[in-house]
């Protein structure tokens, strides 16, 4: 009897082995749009520091069709990113009161509620209503 264990190379096949892996990759991929949007804001700050002309050029750029499309896509991915992560909070932050654990829906729900309130506050401060 001779031992000769065989190692199978996996490559990238795992992504398509089950829908959960595609969902996971979508969640991870969504952060690229959030990162790109953040870089755009850093660029905006730089334009603001450079003076009124640079700042108004930045504002004009924001109104361009390409920018609007990017913002819609980035918002959708940011919402998906937040939604998926908030749904995972009960696993990362379990809360035990006495013998019982607080239901996961309450923990995720609290995160969604704070998200909604903060979004409202930011929209209010930005003069949306």
């Amino acid at each position, binding site marked *: 009897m*001779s031992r000769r*264990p065989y190692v199978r190379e996996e490559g990238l096949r795992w992504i398509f082995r089950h829908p*959960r892996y595609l969902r*996971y990759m979508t969640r991870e991929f969504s952060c690229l749009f959030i990162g790109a949007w953040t870089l755009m804001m850093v660029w905006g700050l730089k334009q603001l520091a450079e003076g009124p002309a640079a700042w108004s050029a930045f504002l004009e750029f924001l109104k361009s069709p390409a920018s609007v499309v990017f913002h819609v896509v980035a918002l959708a991915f940011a919402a998906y990113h937040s939604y998926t992560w908030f749904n995972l909070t009960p696993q*990362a932050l379990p809360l*035990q009161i006495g*013998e019982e654990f607080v239901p996961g829906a309450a923990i995720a729900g609290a995160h969604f509620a704070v998200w909604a309130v903060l979004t409202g506050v930011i929209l209010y401060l930005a003069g949306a209503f």
Partner: protein
Amino acid sequence: MGERTVELEVLRYNPETDSEPRFQRYSVVCREEWVVLDALNYIKETIDPTLSYRWSCHMAVCGSCGMMVNGEPKLSCKAFLRNYEGVIRVEPLAHFPIERDLVTVIDDFVDKLKRVKPYLIPKQEKPVSEGEYRQSPAELKRFKQYTMCINCMLCYAACPEYGLIPKFIGPAAISLAHRYNQDSRDGGRAERQEEIATTEGVWECSFTGACSEVCPEHVDPAAALQQVKIRSTVDWYTDHLMPWLKK
């Protein structure tokens, strides 16, 4: 209940004669209540006695019969044939080297399990005459789900991180470390942190969550790993920013 014929495609590998694994197809006349393991036992007893696989209890307790069934990690004693359509593909657990046929080499997991010290390390040893280490129901519930782990390694076969980075200590071993860290009678957390609060430990996990989805005992290893991450982060900040708080 009636009988029907099921086609199984089983991955075969004989280290003495094969350069690589190949699929072999078997037709099995099975009963309604049969699971994949029953079909394998039927093949071994009546069609092909050379087929190798591990099993013991046939009741989802021993954790020996983990396999990939149609690409998904399953205990073959819990995978009912009636839930599958067409040809059922049976392979050894993913991410582990194949010893022979459906038997994998599990030394890596066993070594990792030892490293995380999955046993009680009492805060203070006391003689038996002083009685037992007492625990309230609430303290027991804090970690009880993690005691259900049967070391079947389905979570390792589901974890893409482990497949890509074999040094990762992985879901079950870290969950068992967490189980003892959460135990009110235990004082061994600092020793386990040396293994699990490292890059090869929890920080290799990117929370795919597949481990928890495939666990046949409904343990939630992904939860354990995230909780270890949070506690390790708090440790780091305490050590570096508020060292006076450290005991």
